[in-house]
Each structure stands twice: as C-alpha cells, then as structure tokens.
C-alpha cells in the first residue's frame, strides 16, 4: 500500500487553494476543515445523513463528507464562508436569526447553504418544495418550525426586493 503524501489544488470560494500532505482518500469535508482552515462546514455523521457538511459543488448542494477531495480538483466549490464576500450576514442567515431558527447552531451552516441553493434555483418555492429541499438536513433542537419560517422570510424578501446575489 502506497500512502505517499500528495499535492492537489481545489477551487474554494473563488480561490485556488493548495492541499498538501493529504491522503488522497480524504473527504472534502476533512480537507476543508483540517487542511484549508474552513471550519464553517460541520461534520457530524460522515455518511451523508445529517446534511451538516452541505456545500455547493458545480451548482449542486452536496454532502462534502461524501466527496473524495482529490476527485474535486476541477470543481467549483462554495462553502458557507463563501456565500458572502465580506463577512456580512446573507439574507438567509439574517432570516434564520430573525425567525429564531438557530438554537445550538451546529446544523445551521449546512441548512444555510441548502437554503441558498434552493432559493437560487427556485426563488419562489412552495411549502412542499421547502420541506423537500431541507429534508437531508437534520436539526435536533428546533423542531424545524422556525427554520421553515426563516426560509419563508427569505423567500418573501427575495420576491419583494432584489437581494444581492451571494455569488
């Protein structure tokens, strides 16, 4: 078995980032957090069941724990840190705060990314479409009611005002 440390490059949040000394089998989740200093993407189940590690890869919301990082070298990746360029809150993040959709906060980054993806591809989602879109994001605190409310708030804002696009 050869386990020589390797070098590869990822495009994350608009920047080309070098990944050094990684084992090639490492997940994108691990590389983002431990190699690239981007801890906003959370890790919990590491089997695609909780959605805490949701990132946008080539326009799709995916679980970073299920992406082999070395296989993502030509992908465009956006993490929760990259949704807004200037450390301001995005409209979705503001809605989560206003609606009380954040309790312990561990699931929040994954939900925020999933909701951004939803509203980018479908600016006016129905109630069922909202539920479907975040069905892969598990929250053990809120009971989801206030999260749904946060998504509705963000939806209404985008319908009434043209909010700055995160990308």
């Amino acid at each position, binding site marked *: 078995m050869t386990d020589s440390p390797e070098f590869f490059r990822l495009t994350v949040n608009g920047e080309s980032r070098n990944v050094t000394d990684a084992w090639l089998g490492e997940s994108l989740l691990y590389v983002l957090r431990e190699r690239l200093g981007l801890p906003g993407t959370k890790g919990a189940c590491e089997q*695609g069941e909780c959605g805490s590690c949701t990132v946008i890869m080539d326009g799709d919301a*995916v679980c970073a*724990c299920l992406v082999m990082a070395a296989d993502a070298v030509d992908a465009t990746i956006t993490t929760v840190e990259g949704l807004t360029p200037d450390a301001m809150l995005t409209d979705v993040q503001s809605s989560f705060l206003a609606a009380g959709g954040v309790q312990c906060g561990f699931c929040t980054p994954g939900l925020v990314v999933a909701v951004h993806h939803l509203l980018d591809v479908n600016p006016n989602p129905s109630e069922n479409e909202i539920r479907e879109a975040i069905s892969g994001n598990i929250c053990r605190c809120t009971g989801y009611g206030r999260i749904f409310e946060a998504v509705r708030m963000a939806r209404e804002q985008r319908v009434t005002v043209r909010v700055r696009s995160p990308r």
Partner: protein
Amino acid sequence: MTISRPLTIDEAVRALAAAPGAHLLQGGTDVMVEVNFAKRRPVDVVSLRRIAELRRWHVDDSTGEIVVGAGVRWSDAEREPLRSASPALAQAARTVGSPQIRASGTIGGNLGTCSPAGDGLPVLSALDASVVLRSAVGERTVSIHDFMVGPKRSVRRDDEIIVAVRWLPTSGFEGYAKIGVRNAMVIAVASVCLVHDPRSGSVRVALGAVGPTIIRARAAEEWLRGACDLRNISTVTAAMTAEFGERVRSEARAIDDHRSTRNYRHHGVGVLAARLLDRARKAT
C-alpha cells in the same frame, strides 16, 4: 494511493487494466461512507465522474430501448425529461436519500454497490433491463436477472466498468413503492416495482430488500396472467389485487436484521404489491 480521473470510457478501462482491483468511484455516496469509517482504504481509485458519455441517456432509435448511462444521477432521473420516459425509475429516484445524495449518487453506482435494498434495482428487474459492461478487451451485455448474484455481489469483473442500463419500455403502467421508517433519508425496509405490459398481457413485479438479491415474484405474475386478460388491465378486480399481494408475499425471502424483521418485510411487500396493482388497474 493513486486516483485516476479519465475523461472517456476508453481511458477508464485502460486505467482499470493498469491498476487491477482499483476501486471505481461514481458519486461517492457508498464508497466514501466506507472510507470515512475506515472500512475501506483504497490503494487505487478510478473516478468516473468526469466521463461525459456516462452522464447521458437516450432512446435507441433502432430498438426503441431507453439507454441510461451509468453516471446519470438520481436528480436527473427524478426530473424531466427522463421522468416521463421512465416513471418508475423517477419514483424510485425520489425516495433515494436526500436532495444532496440524489445530486451525487448515480444509477451505475447503485448497480456497482448492488445492495438488495438499492432503490434502482427492483425497477431495473421489473423492466427486464440489461446491464452493459465494458473492459479493455470488449463489451458485454448481461440481463439484470443474472447481474446480481448476492448481497453486494454481482458478475461484474474487476476489469469492467458499468457503462449503461437499457430496457424496452412498455406502453403500460409502471410504479415503485417503498417502506422505510420515515419519508426522507431512508434505506428501504421493503420495496416493490410493478410494470404492466399490455402488448404481451403480463405484469412484472420485483421485490427489494426481502432477499439476498432482487426477487421477481414470477409465480404471482403467472397466477395473475391466468386469472384475467392482462392485455386490458381493467379486468383486474379488487379481489385479485388482494390475492396478488398474498401471493407476492409468499415469494419473499427476507431476514431479520438491524433495519426490520422478516415478518414485517413480508407483510410490507404484499401490501405494496397489492397497492401498485390497484394503481395500475385504475390508471387506465
């Protein structure tokens, strides 16, 4: 460890020939779970993600078959235009994992993993699909009924990649139904796909998660064929749907495990089969 990232099927089979035993990576939704939990530490990986020809589907003009590339994702199958071309596959796709999983996971990966609970497999069985495999020495086509030989075991050789699945669609009803512990993010406890073929006057029913492989309930199919004229599905009566469910149930061979019990699974496939037949007879 090495990772090879071919752009064409030819490059992929050459990479596989050069690294015997390499692990094939499609969407990663099965492989990476094993890697993350240190159940698998691959030495060589051949990633199929960048092969554009695997990501397409089309209708074969000469045979009328639907040909779906192994890299077609569940999120493609659940949306138009593939959804209308294959309603049962779309229904199965909608039950796979979450939107995140469906955006990554592929039909070829489902076949590669070959779990009896894989959502695509009962559909392909009921459609009498074929699996197209290619290696550096050539291509072969295997019936789905011969492809799977046990839990997570198939006849795919180490030097072959799954290129596509193909089947001749019928003009009749097709549907998929599944039982899990909740609506989203669930692996099948029991699943059934039913396809009606008006031309041959038959109904085909395949069962998932109730045996070591996907099971075709052929005795129940034959019974139904003898009980009415399946060229016209509305000749199926409510009483027949109930008996059909009972007969399907008797062909299941489930086990007790961490996900459910043998008895519940058997009960489940009976209910689902009767329900799908009822939908079929009312669909006309």
